[in-house]
């Protein structure tokens, strides 16, 4: 069937293949069926499990409130799919419209959806990464292993990287009564995502909860004992820390390797697609039969100067999957754009942290409600005189309001009075984001330029 073949035939008897059987893949499959797709549906996933939810892996699962094995996602509906689990897609032949699997099977498609997400960035030195006690956290299995290790009461846990996941792990460890050191190259935790002003609050929070927080420092090497067990980490200031466990939380790498040679605009920064989720080829020409959604995708957003955004956000995976599914089985004029406003949550040290918009784009910041000192506030970020983002600590009920302010490109700083305003006037400050050219540990929104086939790699970690 050619790309512009009759949509009705496609809906009735087309073959849709989804590569990446996780959150985005599942929600897309459900949407396809919901919208009346009755053809064949194949779900290919390299993990041996049915789709499960990742956010609990660093929260409930480490806090003893749920088992990582129990995180299978609830279904919105029956999807009647053929599941090919435990086998990776290894290649894509766009001419023949076939996905090649690791076991040499090929799976033909009329429409392909790529939702291969990301994987944890491993520790830079493979031999050190292989030490017993060195962990990353991305999958169910990772979480089970880490939980088991923590249950053995290690003398100290070293968390490398104080982004959201690293901070959540540190929080869970403290709650379990474990000694924790967090090493962060930036000046404060969460600095890449929320900036140094809010990072300073996270900094205080961590220290108050007993984390041994070491900012402005990198881990240079991990050292094992005679039996290959981690025993110490060396830091860039020349000091060393004894630790039995290291959790490497240096962000994620997009799973696009399997697309090498496919001619798609896919690289380490994700798969470029248009606002309708259609994937670009390397020439910047949009394909009509291949779509992408979720953590692996990057697409232009009108609210942010049409820059390509790549979002490692749960909500984005759900929304983009729904849009992609809709667009896959309808004719051009009925297609919808993915204009989701980025949104994120994290819970750590008993605080609910949420953000909406793209804080890292902000050039100014005001604390619109509450105070940083009480660790209960809403901070609003401005960009060129308009509201671009907001972040709250235990202030989730207010974010919907600021979301509308962002959508309306409301002027910044906000001039109106509100409840819980602690200062008469709002004096904007620099939100203190680190130099964007310096790698941060685990930013979750990345602005990846204007070019769909931009393949330059910015993160070249020589050491963490």
């Amino acid at each position, binding site marked *: 069937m050619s790309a512009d073949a009759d949509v009705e035939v496609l809906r009735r008897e087309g073959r849709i293949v989804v590569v990446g059987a996780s959150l985005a893949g599942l929600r897309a499959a459900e949407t396809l069926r919901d919208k009346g797709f009755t053809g064949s549906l194949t779900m290919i996933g390299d993990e*041996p*499990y*049915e789709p499960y*939810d990742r*956010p*609990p892996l660093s*929260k*409930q699962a480490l*806090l003893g*409130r*749920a*088992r990582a094995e*129990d*995180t*299978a*996602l*609830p*279904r*919105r509906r029956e999807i*009647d*799919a*053929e*599941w*090919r*689990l*435990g*086998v990776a897609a290894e290649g894509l032949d766009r001419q023949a419209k076939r996905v090649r699997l690791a*076991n040499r099977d090929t799976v033909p498609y009329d429409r392909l959806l790529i939702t291969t997400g990301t994987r944890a960035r491993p520790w830079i030195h493979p031999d050190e990464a292989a030490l017993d006690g060195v962990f990353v956290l991305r999958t169910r299995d990772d979480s089970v292993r880490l939980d088991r290790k923590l249950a053995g009461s290690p003398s100290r846990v070293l968390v490398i990287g104080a982004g959201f996941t690293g901070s959540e792990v540190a929080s869970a460890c403290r709650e379990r009564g474990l000694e924790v050191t967090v090493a962060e190259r930036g000046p404060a935790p969460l600095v890449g995502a929320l900036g140094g002003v809010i990072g300073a609050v996270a900094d205080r929070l961590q220290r108050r909860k007993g984390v041994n927080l070491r900012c402005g420092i990198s881990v240079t090497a991990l050292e094992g004992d005679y039996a290959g067990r981690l025993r110490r980490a060396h830091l860039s200031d020349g000091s060393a820390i004894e630790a039995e466990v290291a959790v490497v939380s240096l962000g994620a790498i997009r799973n696009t390797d399997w697309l090498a040679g496919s001619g798609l605009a896919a690289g380490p920064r994700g798969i470029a697609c248009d606002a309708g989720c259609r994937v670009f080829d390397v020439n910047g020409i949009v394909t009509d039969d291949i779509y992408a959604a979720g953590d692996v995708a990057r697409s232009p957003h009108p609210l942010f100067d049409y820059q390509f955004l790549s979002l490692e956000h*749960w*909500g984005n995976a*759900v929304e983009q999957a729904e849009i992609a599914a809709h667009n896959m089985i309808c004719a051009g004029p009925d297609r919808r754009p993915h204009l989701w406003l980025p*949104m*994120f*949550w994290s*819970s750590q*040290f*008993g*605080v*609910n942290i*949420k953000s909406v918009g793209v804080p890292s784009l902000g050039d100014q910041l005001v604390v619109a409600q509450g105070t940083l000192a009480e660790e*209960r506030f809403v901070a609003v970020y401005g960009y060129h005189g308009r509201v671009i983002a907001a972040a709250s600590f*235990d202030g*989730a*009920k207010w974010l*919907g309001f600021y979301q509308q302010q962002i959508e309306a490109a409301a002027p910044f700083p906000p001039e109106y009075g509100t409840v819980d305003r602690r200062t008469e006037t709002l004096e904007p400050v620099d939100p203190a984001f680190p130099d964007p050219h310096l790698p941060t540990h685990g930013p979750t929104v990345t602005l990846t330029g204007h070019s769909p086939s931009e393949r330059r790699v910015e993160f070249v970690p020589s050491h963490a």
Partner: protein
Amino acid sequence: MRLVVDLNRCQGYAQCVFLAPDVFALHGDEALLFSPRFDEAQRDRVEEAAAACPVQAILVDYSDEPTRGAEPHVG
């Protein structure tokens, strides 16, 4: 039986925690933790909780069946 809470929607009203305290919990004043899996004994309470959520953020799936064909078939 499984559930997931869309924590972007969730505003920490904690209605679910009051109504099904074995399945939902607050961590601090506002952060919600939920058990992604629950059993028959909790079913009525979870149903009440999901209906009570002021922002309808709770997705519940009562089918206990493993998904058809979802067993790993490697190869």
